[in-house]
């Protein structure tokens, strides 16, 4: 049994009506926010707390949240914005929807606190287009919070004004990229922007903007309520706190589990009901398909933490963990992923637009057993040509699965070459 299972964002997993204001208040909700409104603490102190807690971005890149917040210039003229990234498009990831449906008030409280800390005027919670129920829950929670004077103009009678809006997207993967989301909010195509300038300087409508993942923001009230040490103590020295993993694939009990960072993969796998009878773990994608894959054997000796995943050449990413057992057709798995990426590339920049289609065509050929000699080397080379040359990290999202699959599973892929001629090793 794992201690501190589902204690931060997913603490209401089995609490009835947890998305309503009375229930949230019953569990101590908005206490932190009310305290902040009343005592107006120095924002710098709050950033310190977040820094000490070890909270890192849960959207994929794992950027330290306190540090990100400290980049914002409170005194910059004009309105400043917060964007909560609830697009949750990364394949294998379905944890933010649990927060949005079971715990919307904690997210709102997190957004309010973040806005206070950075001196922001408006927060947009951008939900993916398919999130009908989560959107409904967020809307009603926002209405309740507004009615209770917690959100809006002169919050709780103070001079604080913070507006929050829920926005439903139009459906695309790329809009999850933070600058694409900013463009979309401005009413344009979801095209990622070239950085610099970074959103903290030139974001929504050209104003300073911070984008954070849903889980990141929803963690904040608990950190302030229980203290930085409590939170960081839940995890390892380098990975503070807990992380939600959405486990899917060849497991008996797929689902979302919020576990302390540092928990062994084995325990997480056990939580998810383990593998099917008689199967072994061939490969695991630990943090959404954009992360490098890890051979099952290596995973089984690893712990679920930023450093643990780094040690096996991958990353926690979004926490979308996919388990594949020994029945998996590696070429097919890769082809399915690449089909997704070529479909979702925004088409703006050359390497991604052209490369994603090419990679997808080659992997599809391999999966059908119609590969040609040299295809695997070519695939590897193309992936490398994309990586690091694109506007946004989508380029890496195509490249990393390809190169890591080839690194670890070259023989399995070579099966797909029609003449079965092995090509020279380039890895």
């Amino acid at each position, binding site marked *: 049994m794992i201690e501190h299972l589902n204690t931060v964002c997913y603490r209401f997993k089995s609490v009835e009506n947890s998305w309503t204001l009375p229930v949230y208040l019953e569990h101590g909700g908005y206490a932190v926010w009310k305290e902040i409104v009343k005592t107006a603490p120095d924002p710098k102190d709050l950033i310190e707390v977040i820094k000490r807690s070890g909270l890192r971005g849960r959207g994929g890149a794992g950027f330290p949240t306190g540090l990100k917040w400290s980049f914002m210039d409170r005194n910059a003229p004009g309105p400043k914005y917060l964007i909560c990234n609830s697009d949750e498009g990364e394949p294998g990831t379905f944890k933010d929807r649990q927060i949005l449906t079971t715990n919307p008030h904690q997210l709102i409280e997190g957004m309010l606190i973040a806005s206070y800390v950075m001196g922001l005027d408006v927060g947009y919670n951008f939900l993916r287009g398919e999130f009908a129920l989560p959107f409904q829950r967020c809307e009603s929670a926002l209405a309740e919070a507004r009615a209770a004077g917690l959100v809006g103009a002169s919050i709780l009678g103070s001079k604080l004004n913070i507006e929050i809006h829920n926005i439903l997207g139009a459906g695309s993967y790329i809009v999850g990229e933070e600058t694409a989301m900013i463009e979309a909010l401005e009413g344009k195509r979801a095209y990622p922007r*070239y950085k610099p300038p970074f959103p903290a300087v030139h974001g929504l409508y050209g104003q300073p903007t911070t984008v954070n993942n849903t889980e990141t923001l929803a963690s904040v009230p608990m950190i302030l309520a229980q203290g930085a040490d409590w939170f960081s103590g839940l995890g390892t020295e380098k990975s503070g706190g807990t992380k939600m993993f959405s486990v899917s694939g060849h497991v008996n009990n797929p689902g979302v589990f919020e576990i302390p960072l540092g928990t062994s993969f084995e325990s997480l796998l056990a939580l998810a009901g383990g593998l099917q009878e008689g199967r072994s773990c061939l490969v695991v994608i630990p943090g959404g398909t954009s992360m490098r894959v890890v051979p099952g054997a290596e995973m089984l000796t690893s712990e679920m933490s930023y450093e643990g995943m780094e040690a096996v050449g991958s990353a926690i990413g979004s926490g979308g963990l996919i388990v594949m057992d020994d029945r998996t057709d590696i070429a097919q798995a890769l082809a399915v992923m690449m089909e997704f990426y070529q479909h979702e590339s925004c088409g703006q920049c*050359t390497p991604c637009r052209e490369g994603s289609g090419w990679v997808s065509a080659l992997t599809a050929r391999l999966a059908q057993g119609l590969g040609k000699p040299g295809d695997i080397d070519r695939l590897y080379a193309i992936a490398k040509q994309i990586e690091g*040359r694109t506007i946004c990290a989508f380029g890496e999202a195509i490249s990393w699965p390809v190169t890591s699959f080839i690194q670890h599973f070259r023989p399995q892929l070579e099966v797909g070459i029609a003449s079965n001629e092995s090509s020279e090793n380039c890895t």
Partner: protein
Amino acid sequence: MSAAVNIKIDNQSIQCQSGQSIIEVADQAGIYIPRFCYHPKLSIAANCRMCLVEVQQAPKPLPACATPVSEGMVVYTRSRKALQAQQDIMSFLLINHPLDCPICDQGGECDLQDLAMAYGRSRGEFEEHKRAVEDEHLGPLVSTEMTRCIHCTRCVRFGEEIAGMPELGVMSRGGRAYIGTYLGKGLHSELSGNVIDVCPVGALTAKPSRFKGRSWTFKQHAQLARHDCVGSHVYCHVQSHYTDAAHTVMRVLPRAQEDLNEVWLSDRDRFSYEALQHQRLTQPQIKEGGQWKVVPWNVALDVITDRLSGIIQTAGADQIAGCIAPSATVEEGFLFQDWLRSLGVRNIDCRMREADVSHDLNVGLGPRLACTLPEIETHDRILLLEAFPRRHQPMLNHRIRKAAQSGAAVLSWGSRLQDANYTIAFNETLPISTWAEHMATLVKALLQLKDDQVYQTLSAALEPLEVTPTIQTLATTLLDHQTPPMILIGETMLQHPDATQIIAWAECLAGLLSTQLSWVTSGANTAGLWLSGCVPHRAPGAVPLPKEDIGLGTLESFKAQLKAYIIHDVMPDLDVMGSRQALEALNQSAFNVYVSPFESSAARDWADVILPCAAGYETSGTLVNATGTWQTVASALAAPGEAKPAWKIYAALAAWHHTETQLKFDEVTAVAQAVEHAVQSAKAQNKHDQAVLVPEAIQVTPPTLWGVAYWHDLREDTLVRAAPALQLQAGEDVAYARCNTLTATTFALNETTYVQVKQGEGQARFKLKIDESIANHTVQIPMTEPVSASLGLCTGPIEVEACA
């Protein structure tokens, strides 16, 4: 604030400004970095990734177009890492691009082709099916071959940022992304042809010249655009490589001139060259017994000399008038008037559409802008009075648009709403008949807001006028300025029968706002022709003539029904205000000469001698634009057949008449010098002093139904009318008379029947479009429709009724 920054590119130390991008700095230093999406006049998209360079300490190669320089930056544009990245991008660009340059219109001048030679690998690795993209019909000017598109989005950004008309966009996503209009109705921006230039590949090419020649067989000549008062710089590409005989202009491209057209060109200036091959007159001809007969030049000149001498002897030189198109060159104009004045003719004019010219005594060096084009951008208030520059002076409009985008309030008042590609802060109409009253009321509103000693004396004259809230708003906005407002008087205002009064009040307005009036003039060279002596009250140098030497203006001379008319490059049935009066005069006169590059069926009726002359690019000459800039160019090619440059024709006619064996000017360059000299010496003697117009008290009368004459920008002069693709682009829309619902209801007009317009003795039937942008009590009349030739002064009172 930009600070000096020191960087190194390819080991070369360069000082530059912070805020510049690596590519800008490299360009200035002459270091070429390959690029597709970067365009110095468009926003940065950084999407092609061709400009990736190595920057020391950066983990990844960075796009030079989007990376700002910083102190101590060390850049390598051709290091192994940079080249590797550039070559990789090139291979991605080529996988889906058809590699069939020999059958592509862009071949030979394609950025992709050039850069593929430098960065492409010699063997392809891509064995899949290439992407194919359906072409979209974009209209008669721009051809598409969208399979060739490399998604740089320059055309999209051009539409959004320069044309102010986002007609092209990216549809779909990823490898399926393509450029299109979505609506499928073609391009309509007056600047649409520029997408051909910004497109680095053969996806968007010029339809009229497509597949007609290869760029390396063209000879490039610097020339000037001939349609508006900007004088945009162009390159004229003439096919000349293989045959000497077939010298034809293959296409026209913008020639960069930062102070005028920047790097852009209007469609009218770009595609009107097609006219050079259509409807051309190629031989001198005379009418004998009602039959046209081709004759040698000397015979034609003899006939003209004899007939004019006869008329002068029997009736006097005042029975002769000369009308010259406002796009004629300084040389043509000077020699035209020099010849006629040497015969004693005083009735000489280049103003074809002015109904009331008495205000013209007033304008010193002639009508022009009060500032340069770049200076337009510095204004914070721009008032457009009956001025519609968007389609008529697109590059002037471009500057106003830039001003609007940097915060200027553009205020428009006229007989129709401004259809602008930028925000108009004040966009109001007024019945065209009420201009004088409205202008005076605006002066009154200003006087109420601003204490002014000089103009206070006008108060009595303004007594009966009532300042409406709309006019109050306009006055308030105008006064709330940082820099003196720009006031632009449109050429339509000059067509007004009350022009003198309107302008007198406009002068007061300018005085109250401490600014000067700016004029947009018709044609390419109204300013130059004023200086060449082609107005009845000015000698060359714009020297005012004594009263007794002042002749008649165009309209007056037609009304006077003289005995002979010399018409240069004007079609009186289509080009002049009062075409009815013109045709009546020409039909009753004894002798008419038509000098023009273009055939005219009407001229075949009224003319006695037709002389073919060189058109536009076929002649060397000087144009003076509305900012007073003199620009001289050499001819790009010879005129077809027997046609001769008009300046030579008039020089010869002068010599012929005075039986001189030598031409007074046989070098074209000497002519412009003579005119410029005349201007300088007149200036030195202060001969250009302006007389002040005195505004008169205004009688308030309720508005009555007036027509407003309308020359469509793509039908406006002889050159553009003969250009087939532009005529297709102009479409059906140009044929309609237009009025708003109120007018239509009042006179029981509708779109299903025709409208019969009666003007004076004349009447004409038009199709009607209900158009809410037209002012009350106003009907816009398309002067470029042949039926309108029977109408007189269309800006003025008319009667209308529905007819079948």
